[in-house]
């Protein structure tokens, strides 16, 4: 299999996302499925559920990948099933708000295709052999299965929780997917084909979601992208590397969950971690009882910032962790 198949899949999903996203945005506007962009003057209404465009670009590219390399068909089916479950949960939440706990529990269903494929097709889908720096391939017989429910649901939820400003979710996920793709080329070049549909879709979608956003991702986008990253990491044994790329997301998720006392929708929170002041500058809440989030801590360190500046810092942290993920891959014996 030559490299040109990889380029075809990457270009196909990127072009598809770039073409489909404005049409999805237009359709959402026509349906009046819009949300206020709360950090901008006048709180403009922006089309919601841009995740539909990411999903609609990733799935055909996955199908193309399966046709170009049939040996990956089983893994691609698993990946498509995981992404579809997370997308469906997110889409329901976009249109009919689910509670924080319900949404989190529903994302746990993403583990089912992974387990089913591991049992039914053990020669194609092997789980429990993560690659780690210095030691190489581990053989986790019990621990892995205890932690497996978190493999796709964990990334889905932490990516969702950091989807707070224009451009942050696609840009940080793009950095994570790029780091995983580089790692996949180091260990199993054929497997990198599994990541290219997401990489291309995010690259094609980002111009529409970057500040000032012309479409908002919705949970359909963030849950699907996070679950995809988790599932592909499990399929390619890159769990440690995926965890490193998502350190800012994990840090933010842990802080929010503990400070609000569990899984709560942002609409259920009585206080906000960040306050919008005059001139649409964001300021860290000084209340002792407000939720703690990574954005609140960034603002506490730097003082008032504009949305664009906070987003740039979050993206830079995503690039730092993705760089460390690539270093981890380089330190892993082959």
């Amino acid at each position: 299999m030559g490299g040109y198949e990889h380029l075809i899949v990457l270009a196909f999903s990127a072009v598809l996302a770039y073409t489909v996203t404005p049409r999805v945005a237009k359709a959402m506007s026509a349906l009046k499925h819009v949300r206020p962009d709360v950090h901008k003057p006048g709180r403009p209404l922006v089309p919601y559920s841009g995740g539909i465009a990411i999903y609609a670009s990733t799935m055909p590219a996955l199908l193309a990948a399966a046709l170009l390399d049939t040996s990956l068909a089983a893994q691609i089916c698993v990946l498509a099933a995981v992404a579809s479950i997370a997308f469906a949960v997110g889409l329901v939440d976009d249109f009919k708000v689910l509670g924080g706990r319900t949404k989190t529990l529903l994302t746990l269903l993403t583990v089912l295709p992974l387990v089913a494929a591991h049992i039914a097709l053990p020669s194609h889908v092997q789980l429990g052999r993560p690659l780690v720096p210095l030691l190489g391939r581990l053989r986790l017989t019990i621990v892995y299965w205890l932690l497996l429910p978190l493999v796709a649901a964990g990334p889905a939820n932490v990516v969702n929780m950091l989807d707070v400003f224009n451009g942050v979710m696609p840009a940080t996920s793009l950095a994570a997917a790029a780091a995983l793709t580089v790692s996949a080329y180091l260990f199993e070049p054929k497997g990198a084909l599994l990541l290219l549909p997401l990489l291309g879709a995010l690259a094609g979608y980002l111009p529409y979601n970057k500040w000032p956003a012309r479409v908002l991702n919705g949970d359909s986008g963030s849950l699907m992208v996070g679950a995809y990253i988790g599932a592909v990491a499990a399929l390619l044994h890159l769990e440690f590397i995926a965890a490193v790329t998502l350190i800012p997301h994990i840090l933010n998720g842990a802080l929010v969950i503990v400070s609000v006392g569990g899984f709560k929708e942002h609409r259920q929170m009585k206080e906000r971690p960040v306050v919008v002041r005059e001139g649409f500058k964001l300021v860290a809440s000084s209340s002792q009882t407000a939720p703690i989030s990574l954005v609140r801590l960034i603002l506490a360190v730097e003082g008032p910032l504009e949305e664009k500046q906070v987003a740039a810092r979050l993206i830079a942290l995503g690039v730092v962790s993705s760089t460390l993920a690539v270093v981890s891959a380089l330190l892993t014996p082959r």
Partner: protein
Amino acid sequence: MSGLRSLLVFGVLIVLVWLSSVALLYAIDALIVAVVKESWARTVLGLAVFALWAFSWFMAIIVLSRKLISSWARRASEGPKT
């Protein structure tokens, strides 16, 4: 440079978490996997060490967060210096 303060603080934090996670894996391999035979006891021991590592980091980050927020609240209540 002041614009990069948060990048520096959280970038260093991310690097430290990463370095300690690599050290943790190495320590588990050298001190538990190499010494204790494969069993439930080894699983529990490995998970306990991992949980201790995660809990220690978490407590450290919570303490750091509270200090940052208190410091910010104090600065905010003092108002801008003229």
